[in-house]
């Protein structure tokens, strides 16, 4: 993966640690965060509700004529046992030495979205509380995007291009901190209710 990120960066594709999805109305969503933030469980949940999901972990941002787009690495959504249980799933393929169970979005009832134009940036975190969304300003979103695009701090020749891309993305999207609670699994349209 490191080599892939290194090479694609030279083509103007800059890595972000995030999940991507397209909702049934066609809006692009980017969920940025670390491996404990609930991205994979969210991606699987959205796929099971008919959304198109690109990736649960690795995306590449690229500037196009239409704005910043996020291109997904084609890979399975890898769920930890807790996420697998919460979703009430069966089947799947053992992954990461059996520690996770993996699904392609199509296996969950969704589709694969090779690329999306993000309109909504979500910074998720898992909580036992009620699911809620808090809007944040673009400048705060920019700082978060830098946080989840660690490669921006590497290779001086490419850092400014990467940083400018994150700035353009922060301007392009509406951004939210999203606290993920158990009610997410009970209310089918909670995401779009909280972030209309």
């Amino acid at each position: 993966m490191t080599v892939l990120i290194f090479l694609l960066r030279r083509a103007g594709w800059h890595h972000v640690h995030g999940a991507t999805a397209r909702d049934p109305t066609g809006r692009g969503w980017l969920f940025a965060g670390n491996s404990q933030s609930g991205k994979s469980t969210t991606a699987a949940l959205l796929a099971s509700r008919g959304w198109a999901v690109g990736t649960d972990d690795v995306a590449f941002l690229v500037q196009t004529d239409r704005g910043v787009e996020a291109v997904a690495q084609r890979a399975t959504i890898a769920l930890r046992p807790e996420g697998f249980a919460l979703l009430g799933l069966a089947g799947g393929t053992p992954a990461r030495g059996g520690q996770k169970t993996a699904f392609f979005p199509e296996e969950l009832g969704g589709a694969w979205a090779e690329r999306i134009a993000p309109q909504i940036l979500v910074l998720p975190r898992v909580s036992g509380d009620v699911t809620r969304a808090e809007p944040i300003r673009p400048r705060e979103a920019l700082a978060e995007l830098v946080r989840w695009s660690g490669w921006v701090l590497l290779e001086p020749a490419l850092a400014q291009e990467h940083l400018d891309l994150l700035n353009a993305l922060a301007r392009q999207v509406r951004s939210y901190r999203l606290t993920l609670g158990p009610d997410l699994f009970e209310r089918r349209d909670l995401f779009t209710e909280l972030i209309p």
Partner: protein
Amino acid sequence: MRLTALEGEGVALHLGTRRYYSVSESGLDLLDALTAPRTLEQLVAVLTSKYEVTVAQATDSAREFVEHGVRTGVLVVEEVP
């Protein structure tokens, strides 16, 4: 150092330490000026030329900014011969 501005504030990347900082608009102005060596007086002039502040206020702000930059390894202070 790499800078980008948004809504009057910004983010500064220091590639040497691999750290990033959220900075104010005036902080961005100072960092922009510091792409080349500057004296404290020159930094004060950057602030007084753009903001409605006294020289004393600008000196305090610039000094505090530089001291923070030195503590975090982003800036280096040298004596002017």
